[in-house]
């Protein structure tokens, strides 16, 4: 019973925290350099893992898809298979999972340690709202970077698939691209991927920042909060992916 009570209480705190941090977004417009700094540390630092993972996921998709399609003589559709899986599902989901592990955990640890070393209380005593000054720019940066990282992930995945399919397995170059162009729809496919990545960016950043802000200010508390970020954010991404897919493709 106590656990249920605690979970509900945390949910409430998390929601209030979200409103609080969203209230700070407006004041960031004249001080956008704060967001740029965070875009660099949240977004640019996640670039390497996203690039490498994107290439490999695309290459594996190319290999696996070829093995099945070749039995039906449909290996020319490999481009469509790779592109659709990446654009609709794997791009947003895998990029969000990597983002939660790379940037989300770093955000939680950073905020948690700032709390543990009294930097947040210190700011409060200087009459500076730490949520507006520290959390809001990070939230905006996370929210903006994940869709961009997803785009990079998807593009590199397609090139990875292309690299396996055309030079290695001998799929026809023109067929690979032209079928992809003909069968991937801008609104149905591309936009659904973009919507997913926007939602994931929002949720992962929110969870990561809240866990950090709500962490018990000890080394053990921060480490637990970091673990919780990765677990909760990953589960939230996978759960929301199902809900969004059902909403956009189910009907």
């Amino acid at each position, binding site marked *: 019973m106590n656990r249920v009570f605690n979970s509900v209480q945390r949910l409430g705190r998390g929601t209030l925290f979200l409103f609080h941090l969203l209230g700070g977004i407006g004041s960031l417009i004249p001080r956008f350099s704060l967001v740029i700094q965070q875009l660099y540390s949240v977004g640019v630092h996640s670039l390497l893992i996203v690039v490498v993972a994107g290439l490999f996921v695309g290459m594996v998709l190319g290999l696996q898809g070829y093995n099945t399609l070749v039995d039906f003589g449909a290996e020319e559709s490999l481009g469509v298979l790779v592109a659709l899986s990446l654009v609709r599902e794997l791009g947003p989901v895998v990029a969000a999972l990597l983002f939660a592990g790379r940037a989300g955990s770093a955000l939680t640890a950073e905020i948690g340690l*700032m709390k543990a*070393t*009294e*930097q947040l*209380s*210190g*700011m*409060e*005593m*200087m*009459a*500076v*709202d730490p949520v507006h*000054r520290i959390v809001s720019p990070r939230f905006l940066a996370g929210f903006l970077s994940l869709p961009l990282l997803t785009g990079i992930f998807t593009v590199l995945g397609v090139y990875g698939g292309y690299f396996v399919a055309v030079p290695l397995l001998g799929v026809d170059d023109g067929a690979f691209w032209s079928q992809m162009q003909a069968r991937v729809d801008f609104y149905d496919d591309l936009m659904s991927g973009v919507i997913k990545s926007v939602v994931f960016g929002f949720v992962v950043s929110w969870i990561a920042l809240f866990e950090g802000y709500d962490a018990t200010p000890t080394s053990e508390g921060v480490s637990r909060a970091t673990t919780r970020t990765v677990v909760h954010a990953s589960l939230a991404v996978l759960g929301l992916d199902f809900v969004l897919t059902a909403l956009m493709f189910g009907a």
Partner: protein
Amino acid sequence: MVHAQRKPRKRPRRKPADVLVRIRGLEFAHQGREVEQGPIFRGVDLDFYRGKVVAILGPSGTGKTTLLKLIGGQLSPQAGTIEVDGEVVDELDRKGLYRLRKRMGMLFQSGALLTDMTVFDNVAFPIREHSDLPESMVRDLVLMKLEAVGLRGAQELMPAELSGGMARRVALARAIALDPMMILYDEPFTGQDPISMGVLIKLIRELNQTLRLTSVVVSHDVEETLSIADYVYLLSEGQVVGQGTPQQIRKSSSAWVQQFLRGEPDGPVPFHIPTISLQQELLEEGA
């Protein structure tokens, strides 16, 4: 020193001009704390006079830091009032509280410097946040504050490159950046070497005089604190157990006060945590 007559009044709106912080009937307990640990404050009355160095002494865990957080409005009391410069702290809205905090500086035990900024930017932080001064003027102000604590030469260092004593001095420069009326010092002497200790004692005393501040020093370092305080409160188990000027405190007849001042291992505060006798416990184990 003129002491105001203490009259039991409910929520005094107007106060004598020379009391900056007035605490009446303060009761506070941490939420979710085990019941057996009990409340932190059980009806505490304190008066901090303007322009004085007031010290709060007490053993670890008596809620000295909590008291500073209550004065700064980071926590709210369960009962009683805390008035700072005529304003009841826990009745202020966020805006009012922030307005009040701009006039208070707080020195945290750890310094609480922002680790991703240089010393210069740390001191400039409150000035930049709360004013639109041109950068050249911010620079002049910061350099003056750093000069006051003797660390102008360290302005380009990162907080991680500072020793504990230096970090506290930078934090002190930051606390006086907005020219506050009062500074709250949380355990300023803990873990300092003799030289840093001497520097901090000198700074607290001098800044109090030159900037016409009111200083509240929370500590358990008896000698250092008594050497700079104008008035001392001794807190234990949620209550004021002694108060007066350092001379009065030293002459106190209370056995508890004497044990605390001299650091005796046994006395009113027993060496052994009360429990069943050793003999009984050993026999129980054997059974």
